[in-house]
């Protein structure tokens, strides 16, 4: 036992056949799977967009300035997430807490924008789940992404609270990193959704 305690516990976790920590490898496998979840949803949306190009006046419904702003905020949250992971690995807890808090705050802004957007679409633009096929695919796709963001906020928030307890240990930096992988992934998926669901609508052929 004594021989183990001298080493860096984070390095101990890397003593696997591949040199990658178990939790990180499982998270990568999950993200591969999650790619297919979003791939199916995005495909559904794009297929129906192509089949029924004129089902809704999409440019009239969208508010690209707001969505552009929330996209930028989510992108910046990923930047803060990277700083949190870096601070966690350096065991710089105060810095990690500030960066995690910032990530969560930006995530909440993004979610707030989405909630505003949804209620705006439903009440002002009459776009609902059952108003048209566009409404069905749009809300289920972006709603699924919103659920991912909400779960991510909950997850990061848990680590923020946990880091104030004396149960937080050196090796928990890996857990923050794994949560960060998830957060970056959710962000990347949003970049794709923002491009193929929102931006391409503004291309004039």
């Amino acid at each position, binding site marked *: *036992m004594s021989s*183990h305690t001298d080493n860096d516990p984070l390095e101990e976790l890397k003593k*696997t*056949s*591949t040199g*990658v920590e*178990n939790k990180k*490898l*499982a998270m990568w*496998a*999950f993200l*591969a*799977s*999650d790619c*297919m*979840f979003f*791939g*199916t*949803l995005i495909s*559904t949306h794009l*297929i*129906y967009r192509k*089949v*029924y190009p004129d*089902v809704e006046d999409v440019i009239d419904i969208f508010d690209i300035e707001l969505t552009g702003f929330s996209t930028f905020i989510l992108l910046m949250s990923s930047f803060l997430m990277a700083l949190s992971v870096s601070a966690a690995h350096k065991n710089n807890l105060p810095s990690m807490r500030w960066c995690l808090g910032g990530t969560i705050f930006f995530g909440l802004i993004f979610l707030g924008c989405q909630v505003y957007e949804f209620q705006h679409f439903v009440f002002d633009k009459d776009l609902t*789940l*059952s108003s*048209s*096929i566009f*409404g*069905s*695919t749009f809300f*289920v796709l972006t709603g*699924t992404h919103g659920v991912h963001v909400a779960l991510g906020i909950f997850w990061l928030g*848990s680590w923020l609270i946990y880091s104030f307890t004396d149960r937080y240990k050196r090796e928990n930096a890996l857990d923050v990193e794994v949560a960060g992988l998830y957060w970056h992934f959710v962000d990347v998926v949003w970049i794709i959704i923002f491009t193929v669901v929102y931006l391409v609508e503004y291309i004039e052929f």
Partner: protein
Amino acid sequence: MSSHHSPDSAAAHSEPTGLWHRPLKKTGWVGFLTTVDHKKIGIAYALGALFFLLVGGVEALIIRLQLMVPENELISARLYNQLFTMHGTTMIFLAVMPLSAAFFNYIMPLQIGARDVAFPRMNALGLWCFLLGGILINMSWFFDQGAPAIGWFAYAPLTDRQFSPDIGTDFWIMGLQILGIASLVGAFNFITTILNMRAPGLSMMRLPVFTWMTLITSFLIILAFPAITIALVELMFDRHFGTYFFNVDGGGKPILWQHLFWIFGHPEVYILILPAMGIISEVIPVFSRKTLFGYPLIIFSGAVIGFLGFAVWSHHMFTTGLGIVATTAFAFLTMLIAIPTGVKIFNWIGTMWGGRLRFTTPMLYAVGFIWMFMMGGFTGIMHSSPPVDAQQQDTYFVVAHFHYVLIGGSIFALLCGIHYWFPKVSGRIMDETWGKINFYTVFVGFNIAFFPMHILGMTGMPRRTHTYKEEMGWAEPNFWATIGALMLGFGILSCIIQMIYSYYKGAKSPNDPWGGRTLEWATASPPKEYNFAYTPVIHARDQVWEDRHGTPEKRMDKIAPDPEHGIHMPDQSWWPLITSFGIFFACLGIVFFRYEFTFFGSLSYTNGIGLLVVGLVVTLVGIVKWALEGPGGYHLYPDAEDMEEIRQSQSKN
């Protein structure tokens, strides 16, 4: 076996974890419900799968009895539809997949020299989700309109609220979602375990083939299941919230369901057959007393089959009018898959060629597998040609094809695996004479049941028809098919009875009754809780065979555990079970979302949302407590017998 808690874990044990203290009891109900031991979980998977195999078998026999004579009135057309829906769903998701998962759980960690899987509690979650998902689907039988009648493929628009207003369809949708969670968490776990927890020296190209096929199957699961999960979410939204994904009224395209379903559905058939191929690749070398012929080719072929499996889904849809280019491409890719499959067949034959064959029961099933799977494969190649397929679509020829690959393939291989690894799991051996009688009953019954279906299909008998007219001339083959099905059912039942008998009364087996080649045969039968007292250091592909017959420099090294530290074992936990119940109730809430319970004729009650919220809260609490509890762990010390074995091996080297 002596067990001590090291100071740090003892502190963790005394710490209260909320409502319960961490369960420590290893026996009885608490031990069973909180277990994280991959061996116990594997056995539980097998028992659940065998139970559902019998349920699905009874459903099949009722179908066959209905078709035994023309214009039979045994069951109604609707019940017939429900039976073939539940037969397909049960056999695929509740029998063959979990039986494969049972082997993944029990055998794979032993084959790589690991003490457990990477995430033992997640493994328990997979088990409970499988059992509760199976229960949820079968609960539909007890509600007013009974089980779903939509086929296991659930084609739109039949599944629309308008055409299937029954709650059975909702049970089916949510039951499959829970089973999807079970398969996915299992697959993440197996991928991590195989890649990360191999014994020292066990490189990827030394892995036993069964472990390789577990890895490939797990990748297929994580990449294929999302398609059906999302398709089911979309279908659920259509039924509950009035979206138009597959609803023609609002412009939905039913063909989209077919695409999404088969993007999952075709890799799924490889999820069913690749573990079977892995088992066969283990058994044939052992009973041929030769190394597996063309090991790298078998691995590579398995990977190619898995990869191409994602590119052939539309061959299930040739008659929907995909257009010439798509049809040609999918036909070509489908034919291409025959090549790696053929490579495997030739490698198995090559392994047997010139070997000193022993026709034990597992070997009989293995050879039966090769033959029967080839017959199913040949009809498969026939289907890959679109004009031929157009003739065979929705006839009994297709039924014959996939029962040849799924019974003659998967089930034969799984029975082979049961007979082969039974001594490892139970410490007792199954009787050879009874095993052979059972094999010939299953083999003959299976062929009498399904061979006539080729002829029925060729003469035009459609699938999913609950009766037929005498003038069609289908009476005789149908009669024989039913006789064969009864014989097959009798054979399978007899196998299961023999298993139960052998578990209690069978002859004691040595640790390695077959002359095995892979690592699981190096340890005790049944393996001790810690699997291996030592850390095995691997120097060869067939390590156990090399230990016995090979050169000294290829013998396995055994590293004894640290005498102070001992062997680290994961702690038991209640939270996987509680989390799975949360998921179960949440899904039940969605099923009951629009359902009105009526009590005493007048009092009606709807509270799907309440149940959903309760389920989600329980799930969330389960996950948070799970995380706070941590993996825990305690330390075990190998007994004197094991230490003696390690000392002997070290003095020999």
